[in-house]
Every structure is written in structure tokens, then in C-alpha cells.
């Protein structure tokens, strides 16, 4: 796993270096023209966020029921990345919306629930920071509940037709847009993998240090 880190970093770097060229060469969308190009970073951000939600949810379940510390470390790493990529999506979205719809924010289903998910995982990080002893299990419960709410997010746009582009936009992308979109998606998912490896290694180092301190205390006692 650790050996993959440097080649992965190089590959991600190369993909992100090429991304602007791919995006610039993509055709303009007929009604939104230039501003639609935010799409190539906006949607992959959400994909990375959902990957994070899936990982955090699964890791939280494992931690809550099997008490494996590695699962807890993975859950924390995933939660931080959810907040990061969610923030990117929630900022690029309104910047796009300001031009395309005329307003910064719309209380339609998908935007609302996306904001909600971001808040749930910020709450996860707050519980870990301020919840006191036993907060890792509490946070695991928050993670599980947050993950359980997320399918409703995906379904919501299909039930309530609103100003937000529908889920069917992605499967019906034409040739010129298809390439850059999937290229950026893969780049973002690689970035997500890279960052999660980095963050879990930090968590592992912290755990090792805690163990050393505890062993020291036990030895001195």
C-alpha cells in the first residue's frame, strides 16, 4: 500500500496538469457557455465526497461493532475528506449558479441535502474534538446515520423536478464533454485515494505515539 503512494502522487499530478487542457478543448454547452466548465470540477468533487461517505459509513459500522482501531482511523480520514470535497462542491456550485440561474443559492432538494450532509460530517468532526471520552463511538454512530441519509440525496432530484440539472445529464453527455468529464472524475478519485492514504498514515503515527506514551506510563507506574 505504501509503495503505491509516490507513483499515485505522480499520476494524479500528471492528470491534474493535463486537466485544464482537456477542459479547454471541451465544447461549450449551448445555453450556459463558458460558466458550464465549472462542471468538470464540481461533479467530480461530489463523486469524491460520496466515495468518502461510503468509506466513512462502512468504517464506522466496522468500528462500532468490531472495535477495530484501524477502522476508526480510516473513518476519521474519510470524514475530513468529505468536509473538504463537500466544501469545494458547495463553493463551486453557487459560483456556477450565480451565472447560470441568477441566484447564489436555491433551496431546492439536492442543494439542501448536500448542505445537510456537509453539516452532518462537520458535526462528526466536532463530536470527535469536543465529545469527551468515548467520542469515537459516538462519532461512529453519527457517521452511520449520515451515510444512511445520503441515498435520499441522490433520489431527491429525480422525485422533485427543479432548476438543478437532473441526474440524467451525466449518462447523456455527448462525445466532446464525455472525455474531459470522466478524465476529471478519475483524477479526483485518485486525489481522494492519495489524500486518504496520507491522512490515515497521520492517524497511524498518532496512534503509535499514544501507545508509546501509554507504555511509558505503565513502565513508570
Amino acid at each position, binding site marked *: 500500500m505504501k509503495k503505491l503512494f509516490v507513483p499515485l502522487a505522480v499520476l494524479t499530478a500528471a492528470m491534474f496538469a493535463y486537466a485544464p487542457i482537456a477542459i479547454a478543448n471541451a465544447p461549450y454547452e449551448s445555453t450556459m457557455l463558458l460558466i458550464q466548465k465549472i462542471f468538470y470540477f464540481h461533479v467530480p468533487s461530489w463523486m469524491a465526497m460520496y466515495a468518502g461517505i461510503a468509506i466513512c459509513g462502512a468504517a464506522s459500522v466496522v468500528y462500532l461493532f468490531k472495535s477495530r482501531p484501524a477502522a476508526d482511523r480510516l473513518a476519521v480520514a474519510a470524514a475530513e475528506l468529505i468536509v473538504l470535497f463537500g466544501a469545494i462542491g458547495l463553493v463551486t456550485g453557487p459560483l456556477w449558479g450565480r451565472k447560470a440561474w441568477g441566484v447564489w443559492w436555491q433551496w431546492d432538494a439536492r442543494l439542501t441535502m448536500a448542505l445537510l450532509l456537509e453539516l452532518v460530517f462537520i458535526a462528526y468532526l466536532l463530536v470527535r474534538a469536543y465529545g469527551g471520552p468515548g467520542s469515537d463511538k459516538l462519532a461512529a454512530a453519527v457517521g452511520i446515520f449520515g451515510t444512511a*441519509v445520503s441515498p435520499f440525496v441522490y433520489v431527491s432530484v429525480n422525485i422533485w423536478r427543479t432548476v438543478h440539472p437532473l441526474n440524467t445529464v451525466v449518462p447523456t453527455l455527448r462525445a466532446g464533454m464525455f472525455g474531459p468529464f470522466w478524465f476529471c472524475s478519475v483524477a479526483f478519485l485518485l486525489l481522494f485515494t492519495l489524500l486518504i492514504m496520507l491522512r490515515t498514515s497521520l492517524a497511524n503515527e498518532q496512534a503509535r505515539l499514544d501507545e508509546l506514551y501509554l507504555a511509558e506510563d505503565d513502565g513508570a507506574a
Partner: protein
Amino acid sequence: MFLRTALLVLRKDFAIEIKSYEILSTTLFFAVGCVLVFAFALVKEGQAPPDSAAAILWIALLFSGTLALGRTFERERYGETIRALLLAPAPRPALYVGKLLGILCLLGLTEVLLVPLIALLFSAPLLERLALLLPLLACGTIGFAAVGTLFAAMLMRARTRDVMLPILLYPITIPVIIAGVRGTSALLATPPDEPTTIMWLTILLCFDVVFVTLSLWTFEPLMTE
């Protein structure tokens, strides 16, 4: 065994509560205060904005529910009865269901007060549309209380429990509130938009099933420490 335990826990809470009616009366009065605050904030020239009745009903329920949850478990913590409960040879999920039923009774009584009050103050035809309003309120309250009871129970030992409960509870129960408010305002429209209300009711039912199951499943590992 399961149901008996749950009902015993409920009976215990009733027995404590009827001695002083402390939680009930203060929660009811707080709900009324909430409605009044919204009334003064929103009413302009003697008229409230069109859909405000639905919104105020659910917000008052949310706020008073959060306080009631905090105080119910504070009572357990203060009396240190939670340790006794956990030591008892009873299935843990039954304890959860018992506490949940207690909260549901409390919130049910709050709704009995709130619905006529809001119908009166905001001239909303809530009482004429009870056939669909009651299931909507029931499902919404169950969804909110299910998550709330779990989080309040697990936060009992945390130092920042008072502020943590809303922080954790509100984002996860906002879908319940959205469905409740939209369903209620569809119901209050003239003529009542029943298909929409039923759609929202179905969504609430799905929430309830998912959240109650999850809570039952995670209560045991969370309280075992």
C-alpha cells in the same frame, strides 16, 4: 420479555413524571412560547404569511422535542439510574424502545396542545384535515424521536452534551422536518393537495423504518463501554 421490559421502562418514567409533572408542563409551556415568538416575528398587519402555520408547528415541535430529550436523560444521569438499567438482565434495545415510547407520549401531548393552538392563532384548517394530519405528525414524531433518543442516550456522558445534541440531531432530522412541513402545507392548501401529502407521508414512513432500525441496531454497542 422485550415488550415487557420496554413497558416497564415506560411505566417507571410515568411514575416519576406524575409526581411533579415537571418535564411535561415546562415542555408544553415552552412550545407555546415558541409559537408566540414566531407569531410576533411573522405576523404583519394582523396576518401571518401563507404557509407559516405548517412551518411553525414543526419548528415548535423540533425545539421542544430537543429540550425534552435533553431533560429526560439528564434526569437519568442525575439519579444515576442509567447504570442500574444497563446492569439489569434486560435486552438493551428494549430499554431504548421504553425511552422512545416515553418521549413519544410527551411529544404526543405537546402536539395535542399545539395543533388546536396553531389552528386558532393562524386560522389554519388543521382540525378539519385530521385524517391525513395525524399520520403525518405520528410518522414525523417517530422519526425525530427515534434519532433523538439514541443521540441523547449516547451523549449522556459527554461534557458538552447540551449543545452537542442539537448539533448532531438537526442535520440528521432535517429531512423529517422538510417532509413534515411540505406535507402539512400541501394538506393546508385550498383545496387540500392529498396526493402530495401522501407522497411525503410515504417518504416519512421510509425514514422511520430506516432510522428506527438503525437506532435499535446501534444502541447496544454504543451503550456498552
